[in-house]
């Protein structure tokens, strides 16, 4: 055989995989609609009601749209990272997409890497759209602590992506994966204040927002600039999200079944 033993450069394959996976995501009407557009649509819809744009002493002098904006953010992050991602990965495994790739010189781990990158990019796009529309349309100030907000968003997304991958790793089938991710999603959304605004949640659920991915409390604090003195410090919240992300990622990597 004349083809030498050097490994082929991986970049062309990875680039092509990222481009292809990005196109596939954009062709998925549910994921684009629910994950990327719906959070902004809901926030703008709520903001269309005048009373939600009035500062209220009930919300510590903030307006309801400001209090609820991080929840809208969490809604989109959850759809993309906890619903869409595991569903795609489990389907790829079930339908033999990963198996087919493992017959080529490129390891199926590359399609996983591409998928994570694309989902992360979509989450960032969804978040940017929300922050910008809230600012331009509803006059919600952009994050007061931009660095901390960016870090919270990044680490929060990473924790959800790791959890989503963990679901795909352990689920025996695509339908089991969908069931598991639905339960996880419902729980995260409850804590995130999607079903009931967090100001009306019992105290224990509000506290859980400090250490349940993606960390809705930290997103709120860094966005509105109002630290809750009685809660965990911001860096501790950030560290908790990072810890969840690393632990879930390590578990997912150890448990992931390729077929």
């Amino acid at each position: 055989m004349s083809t030498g033993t050097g490994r082929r450069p991986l970049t062309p394959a990875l680039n092509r995989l990222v481009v292809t996976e990005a196109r596939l995501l954009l062709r998925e009407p549910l994921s684009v609609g629910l994950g990327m557009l719906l959070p902004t649509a809901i926030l703008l819809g709520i903001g269309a009601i005048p009373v939600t744009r009035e500062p209220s002493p009930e919300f510590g002098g903030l307006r309801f749209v400001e209090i609820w904006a991080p929840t809208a953010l969490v809604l989109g992050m959850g759809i993309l990272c906890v619903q869409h991602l595991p569903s795609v990965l489990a389907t790829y495994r079930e339908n033999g997409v990963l198996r087919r790739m493992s017959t080529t010189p490129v390891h199926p781990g590359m399609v996983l890497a591409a998928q994570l990158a694309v989902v992360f990019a979509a989450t960032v796009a969804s978040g940017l759209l929300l922050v910008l529309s809230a600012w331009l349309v509803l006059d919600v100030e952009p994050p007061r602590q931009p660095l901390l907000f960016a870090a919270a968003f990044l680490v929060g997304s990473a924790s959800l992506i790791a959890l989503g991958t963990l679901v795909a790793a352990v689920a025996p089938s695509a339908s089991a994966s969908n069931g598991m991710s639905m339960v996880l999603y419902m729980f995260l959304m409850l804590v995130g204040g999607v079903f009931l605004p967090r100001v009306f949640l019992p105290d224990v659920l509000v506290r859980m927002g400090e250490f349940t991915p993606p960390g809705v409390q930290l997103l709120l604090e860094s966005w509105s600039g109002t630290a809750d003195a009685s809660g965990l410090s911001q860096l501790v919240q950030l560290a908790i999200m990072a810890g969840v992300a690393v632990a879930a990622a390590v578990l997912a990597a150890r448990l992931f079944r390729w077929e």
Partner: protein
Amino acid sequence: MPIIDVRNLHKRYGEKVAVDDVSFSVEEGEIFGILGPNGAGKTTTVECVAGLRPVDGGAVSVLGRDPRLHRDEVRERLGVQLQEARLPDRIRVGEALRLYASFYRSPADPDQLMEMLRITDKRDTAYRKLSGGQKQRVSIALALVGRPTVAVLDELTTGLDPQARRETWDLVESVRDSGVTIVLVTHFMDEAERLCDRLALIDQGRVAALDTPAGLVDRADPEQRVTFRVPAGFDERLLTGLPEVSSAHRDGGRLRVTGRGNLLHAVTSVLAREHVLAEDLRVERSNLDDAFVALTGRSLR
């Protein structure tokens, strides 16, 4: 050097022996068949050849390399079409080919490949919108996009309608004619008979026989039968005297003549000489189905 060499392959899943003892070698330029009933160990065998599974015993070499130790090298030159491996629903045919082309050092031109497989008009069609036959063509295209020396095609025509099956067979022959050695895994006798130069009959994890299709049939049952309707007064002793004929029986209005060698010619010569008009003349030979039963004592399906 054989293209693929499998020696005493043994593979277990826990207690269950999937492949007991399988040996064969595939020579350059042939269509080599691996034939056997479902669960005989065919797919496990090709998965070991493709390096997807470690072997528990024996040795596998592809182009002189160990597919587990030299994964990248073997994967560059071995194309594999796996049974029931799908693509993402919304990926388009052209996209899938370009994607898989990017996995190889010197890939085929996706456009030419689509031309050859007659799926050019499906370039922008989503995978889920394709018919079963079109999906199989895409699958073959993906197995060929790395310009492999040898391609493994597993259960290529399962689930296809008769028309699509015949088209797929033509395709496999044209791929071989383009210089690619082919390993064809199938449980269809007619497919193996039509396409394969040689084949390994696998049963319960072992090679029951390895020969050309005609050789296998011959080995199992060298006799042929000629049957036809004859006028009532015909004397079958005219035929039983021939060296090619071993027996002739009347069965209602039909005469059934059994023998070997050039039986048909011997029988028709006598009929012509005697001016006997034989109606509804048929030649029966055992096929691979019968050969499988004869060689393994079990039915293929």
